[in-house]
């Protein structure tokens, strides 16, 4: 997983829970990287999972909630670091449509070995008109995805009702987010 996720995690933990919290997590998890994360590096995603789990214990908050909060944080970071994608899209739906076709394509040009989730979509007519975003990944970070979606719609000043459906098939985690304009 790309270093930026880790550095942003550290940043979120330190700002929300203090720098000492991160030391404590490291002491408990003992990650191979020793916690020396740089945004341009690449690290084992399991380290992140382990750190989140440890954080959940230490601050007594369920994992999904933490991941979701992290998703919101990441969304904000993306909108600041990669504003051009947002401006290009112009709206939440257009942005979500662009993730697979455009944004992740650009990412892979720079980082051919990036492991990224798949975000396919569909404009559904019936029974009610809505936009369906289908998340698929070997990592189970659907909550992160939700946080990103919500943060994106906040960026564009749009509001949606979001229904969510999760399941696992083999080693693929699936989640469908159905968005209807509020």
């Amino acid at each position: 997983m790309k270093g930026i996720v880790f550095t942003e995690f550290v940043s979120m933990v330190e700002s929300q829970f203090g720098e000492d919290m991160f030391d404590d997590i490291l002491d408990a998890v003992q990650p191979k990287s020793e916690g020396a994360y740089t945004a341009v590096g690449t690290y084992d995603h399991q380290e992140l999972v382990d750190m989140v789990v440890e954080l959940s214990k230490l601050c007594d908050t369920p994992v999904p909630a933490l991941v979701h909060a992290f998703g919101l944080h990441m969304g904000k970071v993306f909108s600041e670091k990669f504003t051009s994608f947002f401006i290009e899209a112009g709206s939440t739906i257009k942005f979500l449509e662009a993730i697979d076709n455009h944004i992740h394509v650009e990412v892979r040009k720079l980082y051919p070995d990036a492991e990224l989730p798949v975000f396919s979509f569909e404009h559904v007519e019936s029974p009610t008109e809505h936009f369906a975003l289908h998340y698929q990944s070997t990592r189970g970070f659907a909550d992160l995805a939700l946080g990103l979606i919500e943060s994106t719609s906040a960026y564009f000043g749009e509001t949606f009702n979001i229904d969510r459906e999760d399941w696992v098939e083999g080693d693929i985690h699936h989640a469908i987010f159905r968005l209807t304009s509020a």
Partner: protein
Amino acid sequence: MNHASTDPARLIRRLERERKARQEAERLLEDKSRELFAKHMELEALSQSLEKLVAKRTIEMQQARDEALYALQVKTDFIANMSHELRTPLNGVLGVMALLSEQSLNEQQSELVAVAEASGKHLLGVINDILDFSKIEANKITLEFAALNIRPYVKTLCAPFELQAKQKGIAFEVHVDDRIPDFLMVDSLRLTQIISNLLSNALKFTDKGSVSLSFNAFEDVYRISVSDTGIGISEANLESIFAAFEQADTSITREFGGTGLGMSITKQLVSMFGGKINVTSELGKGSCFYVDLSLQTADEIELYTDTVDPSVDNPVDTLRILLVEDNTINQMVATKLLEGWGCNVSLAENGQLALDHLSKDTFDIVLMDLQMPVMGGIQATEFIRTGKGGVLSENMDVPIIAMTAHSSQAHIDECEQVGMNGHISKPIDKALLHQKIKSLIGNMSAAEQSSQHETPINNSVPEIKGVDVESGLARVNHDLELYLSLLQRFCKDNGDFYTRYEVCVEQDNKKSASMALHLIKGSAANVGIEKVSKLAAELETELQTKQSWPTLNKAERLQQLIEEVKHHLALVDNNKDKAEKAPLRSVSDEQILNYLQDIKMQLNQDFLNAEAGLQELLTCKLSAPMQGILENVQQAMARFDTLAAANDIEQALELLG
């Protein structure tokens, strides 16, 4: 939110983490840089190899293009040469046929000769078509405009077709609208081709009814329409009518003959005039072809090199003529012709042999072919005029007439530049040659003719600043009075050049400006004002090659030069009037009647005698209408159109009452 702890151990650990992260970032950066550099080098190498490849391909393409152009040039040259090779013996055949037809022949023999002539002329037509087509394709034809007297031109043009129509039993109508001015600037050779093609097609495909030619004007667009009541053209065929090698369909070719090139050439010529050609037709009813052209009226009439005064009758016989010609058939034809007129003819096969003749004997006229082995006509003329090659001094100014197969302006200019006095196109038109020879010796009285054998020292050659008087005089056989009047004429005609030019600039009329300059270029050269001629030529070229109008400087300078000549000319004491023409003879009506009847009789017996009689008659004082009719006779005879000539003579007889 907890504040950061100040525990040294934690701080040290954070520091360690930061340092480790930074170093890793640096390492990653270095890796990426190296990668980038490698990619960059790859790209450079690829770019260079691509550039080399492009350069290579470009050269290959240029070579292929050059080869194609060369092949095209070879083909064009081949066609031009072949046409020349084909036409030369053919002209020989036609020349001999013409001579034969003037012998006394019985009816059967006459018929055979007529058939042979017709076939020969047809073949010549086909060869000319092929050459024209090829030249047009290779963009080697340029139009040369000259003032044309429209009504006589149309009359002359239609005469043979009128004859043909009569023989076919169909009516032939010609209509030239009143609004059409007398003189238009036209390339008459090409215009003739266009109209002749249309007329001959109309006649070819019409068996009953009529064929008519109309010439109408709408502002400055002129419409020439040829309509007929012939077999017409189907709609399907109308589309392909102007395509090369396609006649309406193959059955037409078989039935009516033709190369299929005529229409295509016509269309291309019309395009060169900047005009349009269209056709309407109904199968079984008839067709109408119409050509729309934008033409300029001609306010000026070009000065000719040879000043002609045909009313003066000077004997052509007893002249000593040097014929310089390498082709044996042409030699024979020309010799017979000239000896028939009573001249003494000496032969030289090339320029060098001509010089040998001219170093031993004196001659009155030299007829000079241009293309000959050993030494050609241009070079020979240069030698003669500069007295080289042992040429006798009396022969240095001998009148030389160029016999040219090519009559492009460039060639004619070249002939003038080396000092030739005139030119005649091959195949040689007898009447025209007769006229040119007479005019060249015609300016001299008998006394001057004998004095021509002495070195021409003219003490009273005036000096006119800016004018090469000697060169101008040489062109008019040292007739000073004539030359001065030509100079005056030039100054008068071109005195308002700048004003006219300014108008052209205002109206953005490059065509008119070009033509005016073209005229000045020619006439200035003729009267020996090289500077003016050269400047006019420069300005003409600039006008034609550049998009925008050149600055007015050159035009101003040109006007200045003309005015200087005018000024210096006025300084010369020239109180004398223009050279008086030799007085016309007064004759009685009865004498005129006799002449006419004599000519009429001779028309079908001895054509040359008829011509001679006509020339004599024209030296008499005649009424204006009679003069006009006789000039038509003259033109008809120039085309060997005895029928038209006979018709005109009838008219003349009727006029006498």
